[in-house]
């Protein structure tokens, strides 16, 4: 299957779905994370447990939910709990294996910004939605997977506002801050995959999607992007993955 047969966003979603191991518990947001998690559930990870911040534990939607509070999530969940409970009893104590996050800005240490861009906090150039569940997902999940389209505007040396902590200023910062989860282990973009360097905790290009070059990835990164020795190339979406993804999308009018 050639690159022409699938879009960069499809490749990104498939790569994200592949991150999810069967039987793990995943905290899912709406949009690409929800699409990727449900793709994993209908392909290689039927026992993936989806937790939505609306309080739906173990939701098994038969179509893509259109919002975090879509009725299909409550209808198919093992349990629907209150919003305080989902954060206090389920996220905070570290019961969630994988948290999915997006961001408007991400920096070289995996810190995420969804609050303000440019100007000052009081008088920003762009006011974004804010934190939502992200700071505590980033703090408490076993690991975090970030899904974000790569560009110089998004991939910056230092985020304008730390909404959710990745590795702070570098090694040791998470432990110093008392954050119990593992932090961002994987950043999946429309160009490839970045992972934190074990020593420096700087996000490093480790994989490329088929047809993407290191030069393209560097051009879309706002810091001097380190590249792992011999970055590998992701397998393109299989026909089965693509069919499942498109079937999922066809079940909803979702734009993502």
């Amino acid at each position, binding site marked *: 299957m050639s690159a022409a047969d699938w879009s960069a966003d499809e490749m990104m979603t498939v790569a994200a779905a592949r991150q999810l191991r069967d039987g793990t518990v995943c905290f899912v947001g*709406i*949009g690409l994370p929800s699409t990727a998690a449900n793709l994993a559930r209908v392909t290689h990870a039927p026992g993936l447990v989806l937790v939505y*911040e*609306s*309080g*739906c534990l173990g939701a098994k939607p038969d179509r893509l939910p*259109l*919002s*975090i*509070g*879509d*009725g299909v*999530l*409550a209808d198919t969940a093992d349990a*629907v709990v*209150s*919003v*305080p409970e989902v*954060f*206090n009893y389920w*996220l*905070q104590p570290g019961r969630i294996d994988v948290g999915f996050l997006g961001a408007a800005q991400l920096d070289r240490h995996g810190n995420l910004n969804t*609050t303000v861009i440019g100007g000052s*906090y009081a*008088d*920003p*150039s*762009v*006011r*974004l*939605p*804010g*934190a*939502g*569940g*992200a*700071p*505590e997902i980033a*703090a*408490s999940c076993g690991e975090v997977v970030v899904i974000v389209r790569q560009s110089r505007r998004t991939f910056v040396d230092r985020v304008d*506002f*730390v*909404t*959710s*902590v990745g590795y*702070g200023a570098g090694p040791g*910062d*998470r432990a110093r*801050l*008392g*954050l*119990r989860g593992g932090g961002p282990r994987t950043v999946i973009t429309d160009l490839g995959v970045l992972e934190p360097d074990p020593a420096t905790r700087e996000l490093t290009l480790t994989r490329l999607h088929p047809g993407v070059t290191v030069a393209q990835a560097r051009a879309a990164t706002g810091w001097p992007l380190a590249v792992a020795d011999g970055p590998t190339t992701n397998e393109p979406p299989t026909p089965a993955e693509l069919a499942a993804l498109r079937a999922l999308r066809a079940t909803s*009018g*979702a*734009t*993502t």
Partner: protein
Amino acid sequence: MAKIVSLADGIAELVHDGDVVALEGFTHLIPFAAGHEIIRQGRRGLTLVRMTPDVIYDQLIGAGCASRLVFSWGGNPGVGSLHRFRDAVQHAWPAPLELEEHSHAGMANRYVAGASGLPFAVLRGYTGTDLPRHTATVRTVDCPFTGETLTALPALRPDVTVVHAQRADRAGNVQLWGITGVQKEAVLAARRSLVTVEELVDELTPVPGQVVLPGWAVTAVARVPGGAHPSYAQGYSVRDNDFYRDWDAISRDRDAFRAWIARHVLATEVPA
């Protein structure tokens, strides 16, 4: 026992200029009709509290009801930005909007503390983020047993909380189910509360997953069928996703927004 009132009377009696007002509902059961009545009655200077100030607060902010927003996520879910919210923050239109910004976990725990009669909540959160730099209501507390430092937030105690639910009986016992969010906590944290419901019934048949708010813990109940539209009431209506998408264009432009409010809110008959 809760009083059974009309929506107009409920808002008139319970929501005053300058009040701290929470309208809650997590995607599901958002009390839109009550928000519209607040706009119609021309409330000003409200501190609006809500975890997810989505389209309902975009409307209240754009209509000039609010001077302050306490929140954790302000967006149009699945669509994008809230343009009236952004216009207020970035250009003080139609009025300046002061922000007090938290995370979902923080807001949820602040309601829990309010409902529990405690002055503060303790959680693991915010640490290392820039939120505490800009939000004065984020402090720390040390565990008296382990010495560990945790995050402390003050309880939320709205003057009035408004929620929408599926049903109530004549004594004002309220029943909601599906995604019930933080509604119980928001009602119990508030000094006064108004619940709009799809239906008033003689008896509340138990439903799996239900939350029941006893009538003696609710101030007033108003029957407002469809009162959650374009949000939904599980078992009664489905979410009007088209409306959320259409809101993007309506709300981008000040005049289009004003025209929409004039036609769809101000010119609308007040439900009896």
